[in-house]
C-alpha cells in the first residue's frame, strides 16, 4: 500500500550521510519504520545512564543538545542540527547512554529502529566507514575518546584534560589569495576589500608560496624599502607553514609557537606542494579557546553564518556563568552581555541585508524593545523588535514596507537560529504592525498616549523601552521627540501608566510570607519576574517618562538618574536601583541553574539567608508604589 509519509521521510533522509549512500528502495524500507517525534524545548530524548533504546535519532528540525552532566555542572558536548545523527553509540556498544540528549528548541526528530537500519545496511562498507569516522571525529568529547580508545588508538591523544585543545581548529575555508605575478598594490587592495590582515600568495596551481601580512606591508613598504608597484614575491614572508584539515587547536598552537608565526596555511595534503584550501590564524585559535568579551565581539563581527553567531552567543553564556560565580558587579556583567546581544543582532542584520537582492531602498532603524531594549536581557529570551523606515511617497509605501518585511523575516529567522526564540505575541519587525514608516510609528505612539486604553497601555509598556540597534539613529531620536511632545505636561496617560505599574502588589503577604502562584504547574513557586522585577521596571518607566528622561532605558540607570534629579528622594530611588540589580542577578543565577528563564523560584530550595536577602529587596517595591500613588494622585483618581 502507498505510504506518502514514508516517501517524505525518505526524501529528507536521502539528503544526509550516511543515508545518501543507501539505495532508494532500502531507504524507503527504513523510512516506513521511522517514528516522528515532536519535542518541546527541554524535552529529553534520552538521559545519561538510562538503557539504550531500539532507535537512534536524526534531527529533522531544530537542534538537540548532547551533554554530560553531574550534580553541579552541565557540560555540553555537542549540538546536533538538521540532518545530524545522535544516540547511535550506545546501540552499537550495547551500553547505557553516556550523555543526555535534550531539545535546545522546539524540534522534530526521526527515531530510526536500529534493527531495520542494520538489516538494510548490513554489507555496506561505505556506510560503516562513515559511521566509524563520525565517531572518531568526536574526539573533543573526552567520554567518546575514552570509549573508542581501542579502535582509534592512532588518532587519539592520551590525555584529555583540556577539552578545547583537542578540538579540531576552525579556520577560514575560503582564503583570499593572490597570484605570485601580481603587484603588492593589487594584493593590498584585495586585503582592504575583504577587511583581512593577511593574504596568501599562490602559484598557478594554487600551491602556497608565501604570505603577506599587515606588518609586512608596514615594515617593507611603509619604510620605503620597496615601492608599492613591487611584485608580491618581494614582500611575502617565506617559507609558509602548512598543515592539513583536522589539525587540533593544541597542535596548531604548538606549531605557531615553534615557528613564531601567526598564520598556518591549510592545504589538501598538508604540504606546501598541494592546493591551498584554507587559512588558520592565531585569532581563530583564540576564538576557539577564548572566552574574553573582546574575542567574542570580534568573532561576532566577522561571523559569516548564523550558526557561527550562535556559537559566539553560547560562549557568552559561559562567560556570564563565570562572571556570576566570580561575583562580578551586575552593572559590568549587564554591560558586557548587552553589548554582545546587540552585536549579534547587528551582525544578523548585516547578513540578512546581504541576502536581499537589492540594498535597502531608504534609511531605516532596527529597534529592540522590552527587556533587550532596556538592556536587561542576560539569558536567552524571546526576541522583541521593530523596524522604522524613512517616510516615502504614498505610492511607494507598500513596496517599501514589503521590502523591509522580507528583510525582517530573514533577521528574525537568523536570531531564532542563534537562540532568541520568536516572540509569542509576534511583536517582531516581521509583523506589518511593527514595521512601519516613521510617521506611522509616530501616529501610533501618539494614539496610545492620547487615547489610552488597556491594550495601548500594555503595548506602550513594552514599546516605550525601545533602543536603537542598527541603521539610522535619527529616526529613533525623532520618535523620542514625538513621544515627549505628545506627552505634554499634565497627561492623563501618566496616571493610567502609573496605575498599571501598581497592578502587581508588593510580593509579601500580610504575615510577611512570599506570595506564590496558586495553581498550575508553577504552584507554590515564586514568580520573581511578575512579582518583583516588573513593579520596579514599570515604576521606573513611568517616572522616567514624566521626568522626560531620554535615552536611559535601563531600569537601574533610570532610578540612578532619578536619584540625581530629585535629591530629596535619592535614598528611595537608589534603594530601588540596588534592589533591581540584586533581583536580576538572582533571577539570572536561577535561570542558569535550571537552564530556563529563571522566572519561577522554588522557595524551599533557597537558604534562610537567601530568603531574607530576597525579602529585603522587596521593601523598596512597596515604597516606590506608595510614592507613585501620591505623585500621580491615584487615590482620588476615578480611573
Amino acid at each position, binding site marked *: 500500500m502507498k505510504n506518502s509519509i514514508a516517501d517524505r521521510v525518505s526524501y529528507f533522509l536521502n539528503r544526509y550521510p550516511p543515508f545518501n549512500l543507501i539505495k532508494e528502495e532500502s531507504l524507503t524500507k527504513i*523510512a516506513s519504520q521511522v517514528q516522528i517525534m515532536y519535542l518541546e524545548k527541554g524535552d529529553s530524548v534520552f538521559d545519561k545512564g538510562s538503557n539504550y533504546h531500539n532507535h537512534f535519532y536524526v534531527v529533522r528540525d531544530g537542534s538537540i543538545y548532547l551533554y554530560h552532566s553531574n550534580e553541579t555542572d552541565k557540560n555540553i558536548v555537542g549540538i546536533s542540527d538538521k540532518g545530524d545523527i545522535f544516540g547511535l553509540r550506545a546501540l552499537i556498544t550495547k551500553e547505557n547512554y553516556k550523555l543526555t540528549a535534550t531539545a535546545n528548541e522546539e524540534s522534530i526528530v526521526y527515531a530510526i529502529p536500529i534493527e531495520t537500519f542494520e538489516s538494510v545496511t548490513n554489507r555496506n562498507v561505505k556506510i560503516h566507514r562513515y559511521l566509524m569516522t563520525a565517531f572518531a571525529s568526536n574526539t573533543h568529547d573526552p567520554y567518546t575518546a575514552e570509549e573508542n580508545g581501542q579502535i582509534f588508538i592512532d588518532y587519539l591523544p592520551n590525555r584529555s584534560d583540556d577539552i578545547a585543545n583537542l578540538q579540531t581548529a576552525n579556520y577560514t575555508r575560503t582564503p583570499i589569495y593572490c597570484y605570485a605575478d601580481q603587484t603588492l598594490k593589487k594584493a593590498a587592495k584585495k586585503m582592504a576589500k575583504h577587511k583581512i590582515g593577511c593574504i596568501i600568495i599562490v602559484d598557478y596551481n594554487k600551491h602556497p608560496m608565501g604570505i603577506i601580512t599587515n606588518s609586512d606591508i608596514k615594515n617593507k613598504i611603509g619604510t620605503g624599502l620597496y615601492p608599492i608597484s613591487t611584485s608580491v614575491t618581494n614582500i611575502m614572508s617565506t617559507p609558509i607553514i602548512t598543515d592539513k584539515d583536522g589539525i587540533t587547536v593544541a597542535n596548531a598552537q604548538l606549531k605557531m609557537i615553534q615557528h613564531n608565526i601567526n598564520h598556518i596555511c591549510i592545504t589538501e595534503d598538508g604540504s606546501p606542494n598541494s592546493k591551498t584550501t584554507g587559512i588558520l590564524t592565531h585569532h581563530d585559535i583564540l576564538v576557539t579557546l577564548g572566552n574574553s568579551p573582546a574575542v567574542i565581539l570580534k568573532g561576532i563581527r566577522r561571523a559569516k553564518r548564523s550558526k557561527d553567531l550562535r556559537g559566539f552567543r553560547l560562549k557568552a553564556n559561559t562567560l556570564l556563568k563565570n562572571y556570576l560565580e566570580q561575583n562580578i558587579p551586575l552593572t559590568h556583567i549587564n554591560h558586557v552581555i548587552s553589548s554582545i546581544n546587540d552585536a549579534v543582532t547587528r551582525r544578523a542584520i548585516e547578513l540578512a541585508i546581504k541576502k536581499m537582492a537589492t540594498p535597502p531602498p531608504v534609511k531605516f532603524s532596527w529597534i529592540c524593545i522590552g527587556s533587550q531594549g532596556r538592556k536587561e536581557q542576560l539569558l536567552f529570551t524571546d526576541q522583541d523588535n521593530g523596524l522604522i523606515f524613512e517616510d516615502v511617497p504614498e505610492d511607494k509605501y507598500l513596496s517599501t514596507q514589503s521590502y523591509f518585511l522580507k528583510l525582517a523575516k530573514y533577521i528574525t529567522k537568523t536570531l531564532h537560529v542563534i537562540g532568541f526564540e520568536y516572540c509569542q505575541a509576534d511583536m517582531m519587525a516581521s509583523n506589518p504592525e511593527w514595521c512601519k514608516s516613521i510617521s506611522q510609528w509616530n501616529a501610533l505612539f501618539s494614539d496610545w498616549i492620547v487615547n489610552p486604553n488597556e491594550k495601548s497601555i500594555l503595548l506602550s509598556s513594552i514599546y516605550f523601552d525601545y533602543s536603537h540597534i542598527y541603521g539610522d539613529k535619527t529616526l529613533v531620536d525623532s520618535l523620542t521627540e514625538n513621544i515627549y511632545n505628545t506627552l505634554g505636561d499634565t497627561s492623563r496617560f501618566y496616571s493610567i501608566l502609573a496605575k498599571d505599574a501598581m497592578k502587581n502588589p508588593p510580593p509579601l503577604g500580610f504575615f510577611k510570607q512570599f506570595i506564590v502562584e496558586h495553581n498550575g504547574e508553577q504552584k507554590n513557586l515564586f514568580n520573581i519576574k511578575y512579582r518583583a522585577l516588573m513593579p520596579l521596571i514599570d515604576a521606573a518607566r513611568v517616572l522616567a517618562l514624566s521626568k522626560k528622561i531620554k535615552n536611559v532605558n535601563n531600569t537601574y540607570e533610570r532610578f540612578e538618574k532619578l536619584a540625581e534629579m530629585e535629591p530629596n528622594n535619592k535614598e528611595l530611588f537608589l534603594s530601588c536601583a540596588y534592589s533591581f540589580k540584586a533581583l536580576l542577578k538572582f533571577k539570572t543565577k536561577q535561570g542558569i541553574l535550571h537552564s530556563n528563564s529563571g522566572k519561577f523560584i522554588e522557595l524551599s530550595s533557597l537558604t534562610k539567608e537567601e530568603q531574607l536577602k530576597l525579602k529585603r529587596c522587596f521593601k523598596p517595591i512597596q515604597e516606590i508604589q506608595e510614592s507613585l500613588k501620591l505623585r500621580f494622585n491615584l487615590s482620588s483618581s476615578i480611573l
Partner: protein
Amino acid sequence: MVFKWFNKNNNEHLPEFWRRYLSYFKNANKLPPIDNTRFVVFDTETTGFDIDRDRILSIGAVTVEHKTIAVNNSFEVYLDQEIFKPETVKIHGILKRGELDKISELEAIEAFLDYIKGDTLIAHHAWFDYSMINSLLKRHGLGKLKNEFIDTAKLFKKSKHIIYHENLKNYSLDELASELNVQVIDRHTATGDALMTAVIFLKILSRLKSKNENLGWDYLLKT
C-alpha cells in the same frame, strides 16, 4: 448493552464494523490527560466543496501519541468514485483511472472507522472533512461520527495573543505552516496534509501549554 436510540431490529441489520465502531463509545468515560491521549489527525481530498454532491477521493490520517507519530501506523486510502471532476485533478493529482489502488466507499469507511476508533479527531477546517465523512456515512445508511473533534484553524486563533484577535483571518493550512515554521512538502496528498496538520497541532498545543499551565480539555474542545 445497547444504546437507547437504536431499537434492536435496526441495530442488527447494521454492518459489523459500524457496531464495532459504536462499541468504542459505550463506556464513554472521562477523557484521559491530554498528554496520554491518542489523537487521530486526518484530511480528505475531494472532488469539490459541496458536502452533498462532491465525493471523497482519498482519506489520510496519522496518529499522534505521546507527541510521536509512527510512520508505519499512518492511514492512506484512495476511493473509487463515479463522480469525477477533471478540473480538480491539478489540486489533488488523483486520476480517475490512475495507478493507485482504489477501494470502494464502504471498504474505505470501514478501514477508517477501525483506524480512528473512539479517539479525538483533529483536522484543519475540521468541519468540512467531518461533514464529508458524515455525508458518506449517510449514503450508506449509517449514523454520524461520534468522535470529539478539534479544528486546528480555530485552535490557532485562540493561541494568538489577545491584542491580535481583532484582525485575525481564517488561516489556510499553508499560512499556518509558514506562521509556525512547519516545512511544506508536496501539499495536497491527504496523508501528507494530515502529517502537516499533526505537527501544526503539536506546535499550537505546546504554545498553549506554555501560556496556560492548566490547559484542559474544555479549552481544546470548545472551539
